[in-house]
């Protein structure tokens, strides 16, 4: 069965330090992978996606993610964290290729950046 896991409920990082939010997946076939961010009391905003090509994907707000096929991971990274990056982050994977583009969602990771 298709699945996606975010192993950390919360990640704490000091401002200016690099951050990583982890995501692993299990799908059949080639995965389509996504990261979204949710600020308090708001909808989700699309950050970046991996469909094919370069394993390092760059997205909005200075975020990037690395697709690692052998480890079935798609970790979100940023070289220098900002307090304004504090939010809830969701990883998602497309369901089966014939699924009308449904996504399967991780449970979310709360990122807290401390000044």
């Amino acid at each position: 069965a298709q699945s996606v896991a975010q192993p950390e409920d919360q990640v704490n990082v000091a401002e200016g330090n690099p951050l990583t939010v982890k995501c692993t997946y299990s799908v059949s076939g080639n995965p389509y992978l996504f990261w979204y961010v949710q600020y308090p009391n708001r909808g989700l905003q699309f950050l970046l996606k991996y469909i094919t090509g370069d394993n390092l994907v760059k997205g909005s707000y200075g975020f990037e993610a690395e697709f690692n096929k052998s480890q079935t991971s798609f970790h979100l990274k940023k070289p220098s964290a900002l307090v304004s990056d504090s939010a809830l982050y969701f990883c998602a994977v497309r369901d089966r290729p014939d699924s009308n583009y449904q996504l399967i969602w991780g449970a979310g990771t709360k990122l807290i950046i401390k000044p």
Partner: protein
Amino acid sequence: DVKVTQSSRYLVKRTGEKVFLECVQDMDHENMFWYRQDPGLGLRLIYFSYDVKMKEKGDIPEGYSVSREKKERFSLILESASTNQTSMYLCASSETGTGRVEQYFGPGTRLTVT
């Protein structure tokens, strides 16, 4: 920019009431989705639609119905609201096409059923 709007940001309803949540997108997207979001559970798909008048059940359709009479509008209906339907409801839309499958979300409706 894609814009997805939802009719209310906050809604308070009584148990047993019929509740309508409206969602409109302005990018001519074929697919539209309704999710509910609860702490620790992530997003759970209630229903989605891939065309006008077409719908498919998601993971948790019980107690909900949907309507899509026009391409830009997707409505979620709680036939008889219950307290366990208190939640954040998120609407999303997406294109149909290889590589353009990311979903775009509305701001959400926080529904409280008392």
